[in-house]
């Protein structure tokens, strides 16, 4: 029998564990000089090293180490004075060496934490997520399995391999187990990943685009009876490509686990794949029999031993912490808590901030991002960051409205045009012939026409029944294709019919 979420959390306590993979935005790969630009022709960004040709050797990208240390520092970790790379051995066609260079028992950053604040029934509450480790590794290539029903290697007719991604620097951020979040587990997880993303963005170490895979979250979930100290069996959900999905995936897994446990069945330890459409997860690889990766220290690379002075320089150069930064913005913009939370929730804070930086009024910028633009994103079922409208576009639109060149209503048309790919706001205005009708002569002509068409309504207004004006104003706006300033129309109309406000 299907359980409700409330029934699940009344009986069970969820325990989380989150692994986040971050693709660094270094210009070159982790162990070779190849470019890391996303979306190039397959296999054009490769060399003997990342194709694992015989004889090729890795050499470490210093910038990647620097970025990782910065991440560690921002997550309150200690930086190991000595850490090593290790080989994780397993065969898979998209991994050219058939081992992945990673870090195993000697990671570069350990023991940190991130605090996240979420709204609870008792008001805002801070949850501390402890970080176990932050380590460096290389990404694999990409397999495209053609034919077969599932898009997976089994059953495929053939597979195509693109090694452009092979060797892209990855940082893996692993939490300790996170108990004690109760029914807020899905929100805490979402807030944690969101917070991480904001921190990483402020460090400028990654594009942090979940939809492009530069930030990927694997969510481990297990349940135990409330009060129990024993950990339940966990499942690991992969493929979680948005903040909203993090929340949905964990919620879905909690319900799935609880249903199994209530029936007296056991949870299988396995990886599961999140299905964006259904919000459910599908069974993947079993992890019951632990795979033996035969880790050993990578003999081709010398240990990483960052200089203490260098670490201090990086520490001194860290940007403002994301949470502090948000508080500062909230004060500067004088935004109420609820509106602030709405921006964070809708994932538009940085977009609003960027628009403000380009000269837009904070309230107006917030209005557009949270209003019209969010609405269009929802309609299209896309993330706001997927829309082609930029903070610069919004800043320009706000400026046009301020100068009277656009009304709010026309601005909505411009936004729609920009998102439809018609170009910059100025281009959309030109292309669609959008302009505010300021010519009183043209407006008067429209008013006279409308009054002639609707004499009864005009008569009512003449007799002092002002609420009837709305209908005629609407008709005038229609007549002018929405390009008139409604306030001006009202003024002219009332004057025309011998009335005053």
């Amino acid at each position, binding site marked *: 029998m299907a359980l409700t979420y409330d029934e699940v959390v009344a009986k069970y306590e969820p325990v989380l564990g989150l692994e986040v993979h971050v693709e660094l935005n270094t210009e070159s790969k982790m162990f070779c000089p190849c470019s890391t630009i996303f979306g190039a022709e397959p296999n054009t960004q490769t060399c003997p090293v990342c194709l694992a040709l015989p004889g*090729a050797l890795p050499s470490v990208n210093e910038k990647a180490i620097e970025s990782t240390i910065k991440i560690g520092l921002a997550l309150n970790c200690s930086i190991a004075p000595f850490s090593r790379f290790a080989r994780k051995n397993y065969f898979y066609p998209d991994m050219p060496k058939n081992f992945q260079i990673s870090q195993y028992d000697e990671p570069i950053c350990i023991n940190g934490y991130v605090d996240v604040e979420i709204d609870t029934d008792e008001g805002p509450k801070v949850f501390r997520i402890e970080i176990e480790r932050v380590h460096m590794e290389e990404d694999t290539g990409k397999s495209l399995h053609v034919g077969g029903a599932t898009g997976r290697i089994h059953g495929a007719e053939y597979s195509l391999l693109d090694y452009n991604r092979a060797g892209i620097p990855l940082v893996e951020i692993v939490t300790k187990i996170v108990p004690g979040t109760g029914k807020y587990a899905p929100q805490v997880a979402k807030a944690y990943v969101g917070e991480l993303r904001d921190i990483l963005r402020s460090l400028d170490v990654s594009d942090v685009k979940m939809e492009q895979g530069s930030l990927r979250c694997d969510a481990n979930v297990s349940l135990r009876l409330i009060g129990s100290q024993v950990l339940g069996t966990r499942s690991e959900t992969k493929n979680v490509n948005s903040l909203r999905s993090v929340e949905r995936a964990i919620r879905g897994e909690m319900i799935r686990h609880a249903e199994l446990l209530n029936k007296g069945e056991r949870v299988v330890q396995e990886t599961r794949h999140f299905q964006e459409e259904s919000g459910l997860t599908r069974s993947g690889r079993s992890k019951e029999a632990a795979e033996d990766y035969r880790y050993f220290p990578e003999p081709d690379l010398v240990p990483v031993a960052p200089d203490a002075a260098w670490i201090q320089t990086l520490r001194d150069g860290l940007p403002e912490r994301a949470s502090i930064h948000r508080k500062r913005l909230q004060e500067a913009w004088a935004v109420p808590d609820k509106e602030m939370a709405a921006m964070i929730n809708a994932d538009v804070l940085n977009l609003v901030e960027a628009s403000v930086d380009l000269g837009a009024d904070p309230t107006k910028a917030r209005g557009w991002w949270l209003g019209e633009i969010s609405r269009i994103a929802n309609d299209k079922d896309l993330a706001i960051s997927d829309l082609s409208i930029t903070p610069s576009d919004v800043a320009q639109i706000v400026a046009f409205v301020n100068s009277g060149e656009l009304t709010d209503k026309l601005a909505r048309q411009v936004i729609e045009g920009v998102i439809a790919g018609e170009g910059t706001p100025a281009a959309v205005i030109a292309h669609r012939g959008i302009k505010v009708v300021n010519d009183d002569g043209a407006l008067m002509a429209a008013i006279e026409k409308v009054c002639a068409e609707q004499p009864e309504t005009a008569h009512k207004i003449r007799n002092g029944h002002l609420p009837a004006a709305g209908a005629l104003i609407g008709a005038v706006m229609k007549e002018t294709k929405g390009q008139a300033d409604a306030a001006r129309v009202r003024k002219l109309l009332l004057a025309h019919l011998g009335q005053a406000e």
Partner: protein
Amino acid sequence: MAKALAAGDITSVALTQVHLDRITSVDTDVHAFLFVDTQGALAQAAAVDAKRAAGEKLSPLAGVPLALKDVMTQKNVPTTAGSKILEGWRPPYDSTVVTNLRANDIVILGKTNMDEFAMGSSTENSAYGPTHNPWDLTRIPGGSGGGSSAALAAFEAPLAIGTDTGGSIRQPAAVTGTVGVKPTYGAVSRFGLIAFSSSLDQAGPCARNVLDAALLHEAIAGYDARDSTSINAPVPQVVNAAKSGDVKGMKIGVVKELNGDGYQSGVRIRFEESLELLAKAGAEIVEVSAPNFEYALAAYYLIAPSECSSNLARFDAMRYGLRVGDGEGASAESVMNLTRKAGFGREVKRRIILGTYALSSGYYDAYYGSAQKVRTLITQDFDKAFQKCDVMVSPTCPTTAFKIGEKSNDPIAMYLNDIATIPVNMAGIGGMSLPAGLAPEDGLPVGFQIMAPAMADQRMYLVGAALEAALLTKWGAPLLSKIPELRGK
């Protein structure tokens, strides 16, 4: 040769052609080469001659031909590492060693035979058939770099490049009466060296005398950003050391554990004789002990297979080399399996299995972990010994060249051949082998090994040059002048 080239007495093209002719004449018997790059070598030689004619300042070895072990990538030239799995593969890039050779205008004649992936001590493990020792064609030329050493002894090339993981430069040098040097780990870039055991592999010079080896050493050594383990420090002045050969006041430590039982009598005789000559030249002979050397072989056969099991994982038929079992309905997994089954030889498979096992969960600490501890102990043995002496010496190998086929079914006997050379690799220090004469009982060459502390490679050249000079005086002619004439074609 370099002098004659510099003086204009001979052109590089002529010198290269002479060697190509010699290869054509004798290599059907010796089988030192897997590929002879006639066109490439002549083109390179002509370019050097043109530079010389234009009055350009050239490196000391400019125009001299060289044989390259087939474990080094050379752009567009077949590179197999002695394995079927790489048959026909032409690398799209040059190894750093090849880049350095080109920069010094050294002419590359071709690629020499070797035990598959450098695993072996006899070159019998080559997928392309064994190389024969020019001293006696029924005997092995050492391994893994038997092709390079045989090419030198057969006068097919005056210089060669070898690689040494457990003795693959020094043991072939010993059994062919040539000079081979394994520099300090990290002295020569490994970029483009097809890895056997990354933490042990080291390329080095092979030649017919100590000075040639030193000249080649300086040509190929140096820091390379593409090899994270390469040494970022000036190359030791090995040429000056080889020219000096002054050992007065040097302390030479004889390793107690690398002598005695298990060493052929002729090997011991020549070794003692060499010590006397060095003493006469002004060196002080002392005895040093290295109690942990007895564990070196066992530890080596855990570390090297462990690393190779991972290094050789990339040969999966996906991107290059052999592909077996491909076709309608074949899965990637089955193609990988069939290719590796068909492409790797017995010894390679044996070591992959051994290494996979040693790294497995539950066995790692007992095997790989313990072997790394032994490695530390061996390094400490060297450190202690080098407090009492400047270099350490031993016979290079326990015996002279054995017969082809004699030990191929007895891996342990084969492995024991490297008992004196392996400690050097485990500690990452330098080792040289040079000829100490012929064993009276079989008339075959005996090698004398000199070991120097890390980053003090010049000391090997000092002692090597001193011994070489003393032996030359004694013999009246180089040892190789006694090599039987190859009938050839």
